[in-house]
């Protein structure tokens, strides 16, 4: 098949092998493993920070355009260095010591949140040959890793010893636990279609048609459910009532200052990226280029674009849609939020799972 010959114009496998052989030349095997682990970790954290900075800038600009404003435009050309300046400000801010709180838990909470987010980030297949954690239960592990974040948020709210934080944390916990069901079921629907949970395999099986098209109706329903539940899972508007600024000052991270607040902030934006990344991997073919069978010339042109560009572009589109939600819909009440999940989304996703199983069992997919 012509599609399997897709060679990336940026070859990450070759780069990886080059690093491996160069390192093997100068140090013993365990040293190579150790150095590679450190390198991978550094790259991951660097990518994490850079993506967060980019997302913060994009969010401000998108928000500004939706509200007919200009957004940041003073620091650097078009305000592009604004989020870097903000990062520096946040790094040198004082960590304010708070009395009458459980210091240990108070300081631990942001780390739990950020670790869960980094773990989930590490699972994403960014490009051909560029995936850090690739288990055969990949997508399941990703869900497991991202579910740890809830504990961090609950601990943050409780240990702040503040009513607003507490209410924010309770809302957040209730919301994330509820919407995790819908996310899980829509992911399961796609796993039924793909027949594997390994993320690299899932991408590989979309080399001809993306799952959103090959799974037609059930895949489309799953995609819509996933987008709604994913928006809720990241605590973003219209589901941002855990930190509803006008009611709870800032929800669970009211009491945090300096870089501890920065961790929550980073994790929030990266969770947005992770949700969009999972949507891309499961529904939009991951880093696979767009192929239309029969259009050889078109496919060849599409193959020319590097896979990481494909991935980032698709993630960008999903992120834009989620940002669009935030600046378009008004915030929900907590009872409306839970009604939406338990009375509409959950039964719908269960039915959809059944539909997808029927489609796969009868071979009705493309």
């Amino acid at each position, binding site marked *: 098949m012509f599609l399997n010959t897709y060679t990336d114009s940026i070859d990450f496998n070759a780069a990886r092998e080059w690093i491996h052989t160069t390192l093997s030349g100068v140090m013993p095997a*365990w040293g190579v493993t150790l150095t590679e682990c450190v390198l991978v970790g550094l790259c991951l954290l660097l990518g994490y920070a850079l993506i967060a900075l980019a997302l913060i800038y994009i969010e401000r600009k998108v928000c500004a355009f939706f509200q007919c404003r200009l957004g940041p435009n003073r620091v650097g050309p078009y305000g592009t260095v604004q989020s870097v300046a903000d990062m520096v400000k946040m790094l040198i801010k004082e960590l304010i010591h708070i009395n009458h709180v*459980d210091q240990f*838990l108070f300081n631990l909470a942001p780390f739990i949140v950020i670790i869960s987010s980094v773990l989930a980030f590490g699972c994403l297949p960014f490009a051909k040959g560029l995936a850090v954690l690739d*288990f055969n*239960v990949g997508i399941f592990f990703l869900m497991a890793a991202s*579910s740890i974040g*809830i*504990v961090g948020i*609950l601990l943050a709210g409780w240990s702040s010893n503040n009513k607003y934080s507490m209410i924010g944390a309770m809302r957040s916990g209730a919301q994330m636990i509820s919407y995790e069901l819908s996310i899980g079921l829509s992911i399961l629907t796609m796993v039924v279609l793909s027949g594997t949970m390994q993320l690299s395999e899932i991408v590989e099986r979309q080399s001809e048609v993306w799952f959103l098209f090959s799974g037609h109706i059930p895949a489309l329903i799953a995609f819509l459910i996933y987008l709604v539940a994913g928006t809720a899972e990241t605590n973003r508007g219209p589901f941002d009532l855990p930190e509803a600024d006008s009611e709870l000052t800032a929800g669970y991270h009211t009491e945090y200052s300096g870089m501890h607040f920065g961790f929550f902030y980073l994790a929030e934006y990266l969770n947005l990226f992770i949700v969009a990344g999972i949507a891309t991997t499961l529904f939009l073919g991951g880093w696979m280029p767009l192929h239309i069978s029969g259009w050889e010339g078109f496919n060849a042109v599409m193959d020319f674009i590097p896979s990481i560009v494909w991935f980032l572009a698709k993630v960008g589109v999903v992120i834009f849609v989620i940002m669009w939600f935030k600046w378009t819909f008004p915030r929900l009440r907590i009872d409306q939020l839970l009604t939406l999940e338990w009375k509409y989304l959950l039964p719908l996703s269960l039915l959809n799972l059944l539909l997808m199983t029927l489609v796969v069992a009868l071979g009705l997919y493309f």
Partner: protein
Amino acid sequence: MMELTLQQAGFAFLSAVILVFSVMTVTTRRIMRSATYLLFVLFATAGIYFQLDYSFLGAVQLLIYAGGIIVLFVFSILLTRSQREKDPVRRRKVVAGLLTAGVGAVLCGGLLCTHLFGPSQLSEGEIEMHRIGYAMMGTGKYQYLLPFEAISVLLLACIIGGVLIARKRK
């Protein structure tokens, strides 16, 4: 040889984490910290599963225990926290605790002495998801559909019980 020692070092670290935090879970006076230490114990247990190359069980451990049970614990602490945290420990409780600990020690010691510990690594590498799926959902020998369904009925009963208790208060 080096790999073996790396493996052993990892195991030693994880077991140390499990032991230390298990003791801290039961000795701390603050219930929220207790839940957090338990979280660390469960993380380290998941780490051991990953070390055994059984990533499915590791992910389940993270998802169910760390992401589910601990969140449930924290939620119930948030909802039911009372001011009785600083109660002095009564003598009868001490005696009962020591007795239970003694029984536990005898049981664990007996198991440790009589059990043969096999190789700590799966010989065939990572188990395929399909095999786990068939084992869980099959009806043949060494397949677990019936226990699976029985447990789901138990959970259903728990949910109904919970709803009943929650409704009575109103």
